[in-house]
């Protein structure tokens, strides 16, 4: 655990208490079984926002606490523990970061206070294919007299059914694969020509397909310079990756602790499973991966807070590690629980499903290893 300030310790402890009290895994199970429209419980998110969590990275001038990314990471680690579904990552982290990095004064004034208060949900609409590859953006942004017309489809948009506004990556010039020619647009969800379709994903969260059919936007909708949206998008994505890695660290920690607790009580051959060395060494391996992952996650979040020049490689390191660690532990959770881990009544399946969804989001381990390697001249 990073060395925390007193305020950070209080924040983490209160998050831990609230999660235990108000949002245990049971809450996600209930959400899933109720088939909620948004993929999260708006009442719970209102409570989170009331505690200031949606404004942790937002500047004070826009209604946030400007408390930093490491601080938000502490909260996400706790919400990750019980698989809390909420727009914290999509809206309070992702969309807020993009607006802070490239938004105009008018855009920030219009949206950041509402994001910070939880009154609005904003989300990044990036993906177009089955795998995360933002450079492949193809959704067309054609110049018109007064702005642009957007045509194309975004998929796997997190909290896409709930969002009030989308930050859309579109291609205004160049061809898919190139960074130049990508532009970012702020598009209200109720704009003419926008239609959304809910996706039912295995982690029960609220992803959607968003179709843009001749959606007209003005110049004032641009975030960052035209054709240079990637200069805003890439650092915004790195902030999401580091924050999501913190959430995944929490998920992996809880999956691990639940599994260790089970090894201590389940008796076979007259002794606890935890006394078998074959399992002890696999447990030690998981513990080791968790410790290494924590170092990477905290280093990435701290680098964002201090503005060092290695944010890109640290974000990729953190996301790749979080992916690998959660992948390992979510599989071991099922395996070490044996038959009970295969039942829907047990939580192991919920952790396994959330693990895969989080792994695929914003780049899987292979994507981030490749990116890290390129940054290092391999």
């Amino acid at each position, binding site marked *: *655990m*990073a*060395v925390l300030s007193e305020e950070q310790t209080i924040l983490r402890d209160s998050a831990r208490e609230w999660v235990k009290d108000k949002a245990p895994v049971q809450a996600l199970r209930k959400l899933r079984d109720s088939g909620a429209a948004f993929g999260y419980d708006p009442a719970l998110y209102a409570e989170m926002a009331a505690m200031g969590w949606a404004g942790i990275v937002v500047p004070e001038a826009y209604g946030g606490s400007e408390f930093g990314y490491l601080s938000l990471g502490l909260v996400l680690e706790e919400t990750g523990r019980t698989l809390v579904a909420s727009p914290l990552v999509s809206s309070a982290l992702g969309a807020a970061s993009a607006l802070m990095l490239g938004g105009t004064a008018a855009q920030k004034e219009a949206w950041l206070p509402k994001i910070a208060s939880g009154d609005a949900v904003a989300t990044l609409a990036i993906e177009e294919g089955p795998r995360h590859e933002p450079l492949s953006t193809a959704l067309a942004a054609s110049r018109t007299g007064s702005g642009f017309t957007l045509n194309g489809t975004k998929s796997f948009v997190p909290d896409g059914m709930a969002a009030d506004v989308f930050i859309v990556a579109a291609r205004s010039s160049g061809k898919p694969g190139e960074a130049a020619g990508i532009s970012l647009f702020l598009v209200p969800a109720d704009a003419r020509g926008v239609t959304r379709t809910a996706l039912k994903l295995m982690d029960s969260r609220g992803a959607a397909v968003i179709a843009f059919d001749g959606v007209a936007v003005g110049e004032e909708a641009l975030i960052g310079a035209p054709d240079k949206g990637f200069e805003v998008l890439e650092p915004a994505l790195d902030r999401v990756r580091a924050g999501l890695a913190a959430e995944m660290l929490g998920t992996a920690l809880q999956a691990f602790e639940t599994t*260790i607790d089970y*090894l*201590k009580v389940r008796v076979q051959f*007259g*002794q*606890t499973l*935890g*006394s*078998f*060395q074959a*399992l*002890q*060494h696999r*447990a*030690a*391996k998981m*513990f*080791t991966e968790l*410790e*290494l*992952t*924590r*170092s*990477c996650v*905290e*280093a990435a979040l701290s680098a964002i807070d201090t503005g060092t020049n290695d944010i890109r490689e640290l974000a990729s*390191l953190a996301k*790749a*590690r979080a992916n690998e660690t959660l992948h390992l532990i979510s599989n071991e959770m099922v395996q070490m629980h044996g038959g009970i881990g295969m039942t829907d009544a047990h939580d192991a399946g919920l952790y396994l499903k959330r693990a895969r969804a989080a792994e695929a989001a914003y780049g899987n381990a292979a994507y981030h*290893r*490749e990116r*890290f*390697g390129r940054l*290092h*001249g*391999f």
Partner: protein
Amino acid sequence: MAATDTPELAAFRAEAREWLATNFPASLKGRAAIMVNLNVETDEPDFLAWKRAMGAKGWGVPTWPKAYGGGGLSKDEARVLSQEMVKIGAFSPIGGMGVMMFGPTLLEYGTEAQKQRFRPGIVNGTTRWCQGFSEPGAGSDLASLATRCEDKGDHYLVNGQKIWTSGGQYADWNFCLVRTDTTRKHEGISFLVFDMKSPGVEVRPIQLISGNSPFCETFFTDVKVPKDQLVGPLNGGWSIAKRLLQFERQSLSGAGGGTGGGTARFGAPDLERMVDKYVGRDEAGRVADADLRQRLIAHHMEARAFALTLSRAAAEAKSGSGPSAATSIMKNVGAKIAQDRAELSMEMMGHQGLGWEGEGFNAYELGMVRGWLGGKAVTIYGGSTEIQNNIVAKRMLGLLDHQ
């Protein structure tokens, strides 16, 4: 970093810089790896003078109290000293098991008389210590050791055999675990120190797969040891041994800070040079062997994660919140990374990585081969990987022993 020095630390930095400039002989610059080695005996006047100067200053054991001949420095000052030494290619000429393992143990468990007797040799680097722990029948199960120590009234009598005694052939003194009670396992072990020139001590170097002989077999036949050389209580040696092994793990993982070495230093530049020399790149500048490239990247990420973990543990220790949980994984992770790195290097060199000696291979290639072989020991000594995993499972995770 100098930018964050407090005024007091900045003053100390200036003092250290000046003292080093005056006392460190230019002829020794950058020769740490060659000179501070168990197997090298040197009587170069510059080296001896440097050792005397550092010994008198107490900076071979910078954080020890001045009363025991140490430098009396805070951890921060010791870090500054280390930084200043690195800057000018200087190194501590005082090291080995006396400084890393026996010394700190002596300060915690020795009597005042023992501390006064043994500290000068450690502080000045004039006594070389070796470790009499492992035996042919007591490796990972160290507490099953059988070297017998009998109370003969006015002295102890030691009979038995130790193995894997690092630097035993050069050592002056031995800190040794002996069995003083044969009816109990852990509670029958005592911690004894004695002169390696005592009658009845015989040392035989063991040739290893690397061709070197860093370890010895050590035989004790009716070795008489004065009774005031028992450290700690009779039959109370196991706790002392465990504490000493903590110091050993610390120094092996490079987590101890100070001027000691360890596995903490990794760099991409070496690997990059090897890629260019032996493997080559494609038109896009990528490592030509796509499979190797993936493994090099993964290795580099692992090393980075480890380096970040060392920094995190150091920051946590400094904040006074107690030792970081991360320290329990460091030996295994550091050892694995060092071995992976050697394996990747060997793979990259191809046939050039098969040379044993003589023509056709440069010194670097021959050195890599020996280093790769010698490095197989790091997952075995100081508590094997398996033993470290047992420790994590039991102490960190609270999993019970097999019944």
